[in-house]
């Protein structure tokens, strides 16, 4: 009888990937809801960890005709003390233990693990990178250097000694340059020999020496230099500045809104850059760099000077994040207050220092939960930024007052911007 042993291990795996995608597509609304919910309780960086979500079984069930109740008869193993005719009390649950844990369909919620990518994909859906026109991410490059063989010319610092010596030796061998040992032998012979022989040897030595002079130990044509060539290297890192007004007028609710916004921005950046740094700058009338926890949770009091935060950002940029190495993103959240005298400084800092080196600068004006923001006169900061934007500054700005508005706003923010730019260009 013949037997075939087939190695299927190399077959493409994930045969059920297609089915999985169908399932996710079908449950999309549900899964998306679950993803949003599970991202609420996380830190900004944790948002990317994927993980288990649970969706209600509704709409995902596969109903069958099932029977339940009625008179039940069962044969069980492991009798210990029962004898025929015993009456056992019913347990509180109507099913009793013999109902079986196998009824998978009766669960209310369905838990499963989303991969990181699936999680984020659902989270982000179809966002486009802002400011594509300026610097398309895929082509973002900076100079790097890499070895590229040997050259005949170059700087002395780059001489490749081993290569040079090897070539010199090859040349010396090929041209039969006399070896110093041959000279030494002749000289030793000369020490005790006849006069005639001595003259002969002297001539021979002279000939050898002149040949040695004609064929140098190292010739300029032997010299090789290590060659380097400049290669474009994608900038794989980005820094994200979170600026927030933490003066007394910012409520917990507003901070929460801001956090969500930062979270989304982080996810978005993380998808595109291998390494993302986050810098938290909070400000009242003076700014300081803090950690995430302080940023969101510790109280501070004072006036409001937006320029202080921008100045701080600028200083940090200069000292730690060279714009040629880092993609710079900034997101500012505020309730819109700013002292009037500060407007001009803020504007100048922004247009002259920050915006030219930033990929993207977003301003999010957060309002009270029950806010009637749209009827109120525009805040001082909003007015200022509006004016800058009218003057051509690449600013994104938006007002948000409800938790549920964050996601659409973010979405909207990037998409509209992309479109505008496309239309403008």
């Amino acid at each position: 009888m013949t037997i075939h042993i087939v190695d299927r291990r190399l077959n493409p795996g994930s045969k059920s990937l297609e089915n999985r995608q169908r399932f996710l597509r079908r449950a999309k609304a549900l899964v998306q809801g679950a993803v949003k919910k599970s991202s609420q309780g996380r830190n900004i960086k944790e948002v990317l960890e994927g993980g288990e979500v649970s969706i209600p079984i509704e709409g995902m069930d596969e109903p069958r005709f099932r029977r339940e109740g009625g008179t039940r008869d069962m044969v069980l193993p492991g009798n210990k003390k029962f004898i025929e005719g015993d009456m056992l009390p019913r347990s509180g649950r109507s099913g009793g233990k013999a109902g079986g844990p196998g009824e998978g369909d009766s669960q209310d919620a369905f838990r499963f693990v989303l991969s990181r990518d699936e999680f984020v994909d659902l989270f982000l859906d179809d966002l486009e990178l802002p400011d594509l026109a300026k610097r398309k991410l895929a082509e973002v490059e900076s100079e790097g250097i890499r070895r590229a063989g040997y050259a005949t010319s170059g700087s002395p610092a780059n001489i490749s000694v081993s290569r040079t010596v090897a070539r010199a030796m090859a040349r010396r061998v090929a041209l039969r340059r006399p070896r110093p040992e041959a000279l030494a032998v002749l000289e030793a012979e000369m020490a005790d020999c006849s006069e005639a022989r001595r003259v002969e040897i002297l001539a021979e030595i002279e000939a050898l020496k002149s040949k040695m002079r004609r064929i140098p130990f190292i010739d300029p044509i032997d010299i090789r230099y290590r060659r380097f060539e400049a290669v474009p290297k994608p900038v794989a890192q980005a820094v994200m500045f979170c600026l927030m007004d933490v003066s007394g007028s910012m409520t917990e609710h507003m901070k929460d809104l801001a956090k969500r916004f930062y979270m989304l921005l982080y996810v978005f950046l993380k998808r595109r850059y291998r390494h993302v740094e986050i810098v938290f700058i909070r400000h009242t009338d003076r700014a300081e760099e803090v950690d995430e926890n302080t940023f969101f949770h510790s109280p501070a009091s004072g006036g409001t000077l937006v320029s202080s935060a921008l100045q701080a950002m600028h200083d940090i940029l200069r000292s730690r994040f060279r714009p040629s190495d880092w993609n710079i993103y900034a997101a500012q959240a505020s309730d819109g207050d700013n002292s009037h005298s500060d407007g001009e400084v803020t504007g100048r800092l922004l247009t002259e220092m920050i915006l030219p080196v930033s990929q993207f600068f977003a301003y999010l004006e957060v309002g009270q939960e029950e806010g009637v923001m749209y009827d109120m006169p525009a805040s001082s900061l909003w007015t200022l930024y509006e004016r800058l934007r009218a003057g051509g500054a690449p600013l994104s700005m938006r007002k948000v007052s409800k938790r549920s508005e964050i996601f659409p706003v973010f979405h909207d923010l990037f998409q509209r911007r992309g479109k505008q730019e496309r239309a403008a260009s």
Partner: protein
Amino acid sequence: MTATDQPLFQGADWDFLTLQRIYDACEGIALKELRLDVYPNQIEVITAEQMLDAHSSVGMPLYYKHWSFGKHFAFQEASYRKGLMGLAYEIVINSSPCISYLMEENTATMQTLVTAHAAFGHNHFFKNNYLFRQWTDADGILDYLEFAKTYVTQCEERYGRQAVERTLDAAHALMSHGIDRYSGKKKLDLRAEEKRAGKRRLHEEGTFNDLWRTVPTGPVKSDVLQNVGRRQKLLGLPQENLLYFLEKTAPRLAPWQRELLRIVRHIAQYFYPQSQTKVMNEGTATYVHYRIMNRLHEQGRISDGNFLEFLQSHTNVVFQPDFDNPHYSGFNPYALGFAMMQDIERIVTSPDEEDREWFPDIAGAGDAMGVLRSVWTDYRDESFIGQFLSPRLMRHFRMFHLHDDLEESAGIRVDAIHDERGYRRLRRELARQYDVGFIDANIEVVDVDLAGDRRLMLRHAVLKGAQLNEVDAKRVLQYLADLWSYDVSLVEVDASDTVLKEYVANPRKLAAAA
């Protein structure tokens, strides 16, 4: 057979030559000593991930695409990752050649065990058991699944994925009621089935003439339709194969939808014998692997250490937790099946007085394998237990029978235990637990209101007071109505024809338009 005393392998590692040696050794024992009769084998080595993949699409190597398999995969993956569930050691497919999957992570001992278990135990059972011979077509199944997969894909391209998905959803909901239980005269020929589908499509395309649509239909032959007897005969009523009935008579299904129903129905039919022979099937395979492994060990081809490894996993497989054990979830088919097979062997070779009294036909017959082979051929779980469960085993498992009647307010009655008075009742009751007639709800199409609103009427004959789960029943009926595209009603009646409950479902507009 060359009596080699060389071990087949050392330690846990294996390569393909080892697998070949293992297979040859198992084959020698299976065919010459146990005289099994098997389909040609094909052994495939797969990874754990592929095992999980295969497991989520009902163990078949190829299957049409449907979201529900993705759901099962996601669910199983989650529980596998958490460690709630171990992976199956093997999957075996009832096809010719019989395909067994070996997982690459298994040790050499486990590969031997799985080869003996699947490639010989299950394989022999598939090839010989009367249910499988009657209902499944091992030669055609892989081709048919290939056809089903392609057909579903084509339908999706042509009619849209959503429409196909809706039809399949509905068909899956009715899958357990898409089985012919009794006719059994015609063996399914899946290859011909596939050709037929192609031909029918060609014929339809070739003979399509739009004019037929405009031909006026005659007046309704009301007298024929009013006559219940004739109508029922015409429609083949009562009919318990709901999918079959819909495929043949649903008024507004498109031809491709009928074909989809047919595919789901055929596949359900293919799996029908497996659900009826779990105990026997696993019992056979476990018994066979036990015999083969022991023989290999006797021959010195499996080292003592490896044999201990085998015994350990074998013991895990045939472990039967007691009813009050938290791990208890019904009888373990491996445990019960294996114990019964061994018991039969004992009865045949060294019976005691009780055995002679209970099993006069086989007690002391001498040829254990001969008896077992004929048992494996001619029985299914219900009849197997009803016939061969011995008092000794009932005592061994310490079986008892509980009768839970809600009318009887005092509690749950212990009806029988493993004693002289209880043996026969216990055995009858346990056999009944494996009777498909008692497992699935008995639902039939009884009539169609052809003269009126075309309402489809179903009837659930309630057994022992167990009615349908209301939520699920409504959902399934909704699917049914969508396929039928007119109203559907279901009544639940008890033995005295008293109506216990009535359901009505109206078709959804969407489905009707599709």
